[in-house]
């Protein structure tokens, strides 16, 4: 079956611009996660959705970052007034349920470059 998909695969933008990154989870998966990965590091948690609501947004670095999942499926990560330090690979993952034993399945990521 289809895995997690993310678009675009690459995004280059200028400092100060607004960007949207999209995640399409595996069909039927109720939980969705966003992570950020910098070169040479493990993923850094940003936000977790259970259904339509953000169950935990404690990893969002500041109020320039926002994410939505209006219908409980596709999610969009939004970054306002981008900064060079936002450059990273943004990963999306989904899991079937919300339990701690549920496996998270990852998409290929969106590489964001802020010039």
């Amino acid at each position, binding site marked *: 079956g289809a895995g*997690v998909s993310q678009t675009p695969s690459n995004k280059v933008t200028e400092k100060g611009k607004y960007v949207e990154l999209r995640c399409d989870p595996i069909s039927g998966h109720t*939980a969705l*996660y966003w992570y950020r990965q910098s070169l*040479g*590091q*493990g*993923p*850094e*948690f940003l936000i*977790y959705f259970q259904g339509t609501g953000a*169950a*935990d947004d*404690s*990893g969002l670095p500041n109020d320039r970052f926002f994410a939505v999942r209006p219908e409980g499926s596709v999610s969009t990560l939004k970054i306002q007034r981008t900064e060079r330090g936002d450059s990273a690979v943004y*990963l999306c*993952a989904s899991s079937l349920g*919300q*339990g*701690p*034993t549920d*496996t*998270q*399945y*990852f*998409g*290929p*990521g969106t590489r964001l470059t802020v010039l």
Partner: protein
Amino acid sequence: AQSVAQPEDQVNVAEGNPLTVKCTYSVSGNPYLFWYVQYPNRGLQFLLKYITGDNLVKGSYGFEAEFNKSQTSFHLKKPSALVSDSALYFCAVRDPRRSNYQLIWGAGTKLIIKP
């Protein structure tokens, strides 16, 4: 605080030899442990997980991992390495006592298998 350590930035193994990628964790109680692999320009792929039960867990592509509670370790192993196993490997932990379901990640270990 919860943490995961992968003490080796890089592991070099000759093809056909056994391989071990080390992971230690710091979580009170009984953690849930995961291994993922990341190929260049691709997302994270799930390999295996330990939840409870048998300390030796078998996963994808011939990999296995051994949970050792006394040493707080979850080392990834494979009896005979393939060149195609060359990739970046991440260990992750989740504390089942916490309602926050985010994974805590190690920094990754680059595995290089030489022909």
